[in-house]
């Protein structure tokens, strides 16, 4: 499995869980949970494929982690901005903090994924 595909799948799965966690952290949103999960899954997919693509080009754990952190934070910021635009409250910390850590996780996993095989495949 290539790193972008791996990132896509991992990002998607983490996105689903991240969306579902709203049921625990904010039970009042339960009626909108389907929309929330679709949104966070979509965000996870984009995060995953971007970071996975980066991991394919750049083989460095520190840079991969940094890129993951930035992508995670930026996309989470996008969500906050979207909420504000829709007239909602700005939850900077509760959305951006977990989003950044998810980016870190994907960044780490995509760097480690296929560590040996990728060297051969990508150097062609």
């Amino acid at each position, binding site marked *: 499995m290539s790193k972008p595909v791996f990132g896509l799948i991992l990002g998607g799965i983490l996105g689903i869980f991240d969306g579902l*966690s709203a049921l*625990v*952290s*904010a039970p009042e949103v339960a009626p909108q949970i389907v929309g929330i999960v679709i949104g966070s899954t979509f965000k996870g997919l984009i995060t995953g494929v971007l970071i996975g693509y980066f991991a394919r080009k750049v083989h460095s754990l520190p840079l991969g982690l940094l890129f993951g952190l930035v992508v995670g934070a930026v996309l989470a910021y996008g969500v906050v901005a979207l909420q504000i635009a829709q007239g909602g409250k700005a939850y900077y*910390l*509760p959305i951006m*903090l*977990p989003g950044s*850590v*998810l980016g*870190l*996780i994907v960044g*780490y*996993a995509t760097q*480690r994924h296929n560590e040996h095989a990728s060297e051969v495949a990508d150097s062609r």
Partner: protein
Amino acid sequence: MPLSDAAVASLRALADWPDTSDSKYDILERIGRGGMGSVYLAHDRALDRRVAIKVVSLPEPPAGTGLAGERLTREARILAGLEHPGLVPVHDVGVLTDGRPYYVMKWIRGTRLDAYLQSPRTEAARLRIFARICDAIAFAHQAGVIHRDLTPANIMVGAFGEVLVLDWGLARIRLDRSGVSPVTTQPGTVMGTAGFMAPELAAGRSDASDERTDVYALGGLLEVLTQPPRGQFTPRPLAAIIAKARAASPADRYPAVEALASDVERYGAGDPVAAYREGPLEWASRHATRHQTAIVLVAVYIVIRVILLAFR
């Protein structure tokens, strides 16, 4: 007047000192001494380079007719037939003015493995050395040659981390493709070095020796290489690998050096090894160590979620 031991020793050394006056080599100093001969550092005048020369010790019947001489020549021919970065290249063979045969090989700037291990080394570095030894031996096996005397004293670690296997004087040729005479040891002769010598060799059944005889010695080398510091113990999978390689019966050992080497490689990479069945706890702890960072990251994520929940 009786001579002192020291005087006898120095007279001996003087008589033993090779006379290479009719060759292109100037002997500089003795750098090693083994059971069958001595190794000298020499200068090759023709090519202006340092070389190592191995000479049979005196007394030795003239013209290389003796057993030691025969063995030395045989060793040179075996080594010359095996070209591998883990084996010393042989440059030349010859006979001294006193009739003793010698051979000239590349001089290795390095330390013997036993001396090398006196300084602290990381486990990764030790396992790397073991892998290189296995490479060289597996190569020899493929060429049909069994070393039969692998010990830390017969392995040199070069200045650039290269590893060379020396002393093929007891080697046995299984498949004769080289034109070198096959088995030269008499059945019943005990050869090799205790502690690394497989039981079949110790019993004098040298004809029973095969690849697994070297696997046994490699197990001994692995044990020496991975000796844990005082107060610590050898991890169980590693201990199981060593035990399997050193099994008394050849049938219980790894069938080939490659199998041993890949099990050690798996151990080094944190993968399960063939020689050991781990329990569920060991499985969990191996995976936990291996995926430490991932586990920490996920834990951080969960902790953040919990904290956010608490401060809602």
